[in-house]
């Protein structure tokens, strides 16, 4: 157990170092960092001085080590476009993205489980059938199109909700939140649905499949024979046993919520790190891109590690196999 734990953590660190290597190579070899920081008017003496000062004349391995050390301390350099510190840019925009991810994740989980149970219990019903059919179309719809369609219906035609931006922001000592005002919630609804819809469909289909599987088991028949109420069987006996795979999938989906927030944030001009990243790609702002890559790398690797470890805790069979190497 301890050995496996150790092995997984080492693997995760290795992947992170690899991601850092990619980020470093981008930073070092794509475009000239000196050119990016000084602009066109600098003299060649200025460039040499800065090159020396930044340590760009040192051996590559040393530069890489310094890059990793700086990154660990939260130092990512300055944006080529705005001259701001990348770390500041990220810390300003991160709350917006995290709140959006949190709300859309909650929406996806609650509605996904609810609809999944419903469609499994009323398998033959008309409503359940139409929900399943709609979800098939929903999976094929690209995220950005869902966003645009929601804007069209709820912002343009009905004028119920704002179509872009994040309003009603309250500053709580460095953390800007939009969860404390009505305006904030109103501007959050459409982006959150856009971002969570795909995950919602995924969870719904998974819960439905698992429920149908569980409802066929003998212990459910036995519970019915004992005269336990249907509601209690469905929610206490059946749903509980479907939740382990659901939690795993939901955990892994947190990563893709973060990644797909790039698209949602662009559609709704939501001022988070995703919008910052796409602007960086557009203007070829390499330090911002490589910092974002590192950030996302840390998020993804930690989630994968957590899910792996959770598996070990939940499923005792894996403990026995784990010592025989990766499967």
């Amino acid at each position, binding site marked *: 157990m301890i050995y496996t734990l150790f092995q997984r953590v080492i693997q995760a660190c290795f992947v992170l170092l690899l*991601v850092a290597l990619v980020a470093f190579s981008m930073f070092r070899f794509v475009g000239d960092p000196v050119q990016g920081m000084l602009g066109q008017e600098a003299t060649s003496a200025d460039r040499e001085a800065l090159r020396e000062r930044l340590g760009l004349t040192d051996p590559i391995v040393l530069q890489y080590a310094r890059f990793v050390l700086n990154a660990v301390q939260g130092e990512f350099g300055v944006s080529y476009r705005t001259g701001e510190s990348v770390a500041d840019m990220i810390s300003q925009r991160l709350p917006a993205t995290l709140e959006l991810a949190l709300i859309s994740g909650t929406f996806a989980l609650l509605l996904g489980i609810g609809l999944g149970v419903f469609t499994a219990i009323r398998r033959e019903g008309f409503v359940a059938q139409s929900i399943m059919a709609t979800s098939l*179309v929903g999976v094929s719809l690209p995220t*950005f*199109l869902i966003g645009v369609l929601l*804007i069209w219906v709820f912002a343009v035609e009905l004028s119920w909700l704002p179509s872009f931006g994040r309003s009603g922001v309250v500053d709580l000592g460095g953390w800007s939140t939009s969860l404390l005002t009505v305006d904030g919630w109103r501007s959050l609804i459409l982006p959150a649905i856009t971002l969570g819809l795909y995950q919602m469909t995924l969870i719904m289909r998974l819960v439905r499949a698992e429920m149908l599987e569980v409802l066929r088991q003998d212990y459910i028949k036995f519970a019915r024979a004992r005269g336990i109420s249907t509601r209690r069987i469905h929610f206490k006996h059946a749903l509980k046993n479907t939740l382990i795979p659901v939690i795993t999938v939901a955990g892994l989906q947190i*990563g893709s919520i973060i990644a797909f927030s790039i*698209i949602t944030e662009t559609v709704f001009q939501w001022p988070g790190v995703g919008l910052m990243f*796409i602007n960086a790609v557009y203007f070829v702002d*390499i330090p911002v891109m490589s910092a974002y890559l590192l950030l996302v790398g840390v998020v993804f690797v930690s989630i994968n590690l957590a899910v792996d470890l959770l598996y070990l805790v939940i499923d005792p069979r894996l403990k026995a196999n784990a010592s025989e190497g990766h499967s």
Partner: protein
Amino acid sequence: MSRWDSDFVYAFKRSPVACVSAGVVCLLVLAAVFAPWIAPLNPFDMAALNLMNGFTPPLAPNAFTGETFLLGTDDQGRDLFSAILYGLRVSLFVGFAAVALAMFLGVFLGLLAGYRGGWVDTLIMRMADVQVTFPSILIAMLIYGVAQGLIAPDNRGDLAIGVLILSIGLSEWVQFARTVRGTTLVEKEKEYVQAARLMGLNPLAVMVRHILPNVTTPVLVIATITLALAIIAEATLSFLGVGAPPTEPSLGTLIRIGQDFLFSGEWWILLFPALTLLLLALSVNLLGDWLRDTLNPRLK
């Protein structure tokens, strides 16, 4: 290729979903290929554009010129039907080219990893493991950004389509490589491969002529599913403004343009490109799912 016999044709004819989606895909591909002959106007010919025709609603005569357009016009007075046909052409071209690149790369790396084994295998499959940790759209955006950084600013517009193909292609190779490697590991132990090696054929010939034919079916299935992903990825990147250049608008670019006019009531500029993209993505998706279920139920 015995699996392509009457069983397959029979299953195809029995499935209405397969017939309809294959029909739609064929129709859209033909429309894209023959766009220059079908389209009433060339949307890229600046001389043919009349700004007076701007914002003409579908099937209604323009207030100034009296001209009528099937699906209306956009702000530049460009015929939307022609723009969609040409956009479809860009979308499909990028999609097919990206899948071809991903397939070539994935099959090659998968064969190499499976056949060689050892550190080559470890290196390639570890790379694949790290890459699938991240969603492919994110990888595509990163590659796009890096490639733009490597190109001189003056050439960025001209090379944008190539960069787009490269970024989507490089982000989708893993699935191919994993499948091909799995089959290669099984096949290379079989006697006919041993015999081919004993005959002194070089490794490349063994891989391509003897092992490769075993993987054509799963590779075809993955290619179809990847095509749907690539089309959506292309549309997404172009919609975000980091894809096809404005001079060669794809369906995603057209939707991006259309979004700007939603608030002023010109809904058709958004609706028709969006519907075309949806139809294309949905039918390729359904076709891919059907192929997977029919040819290789184990692939999931």
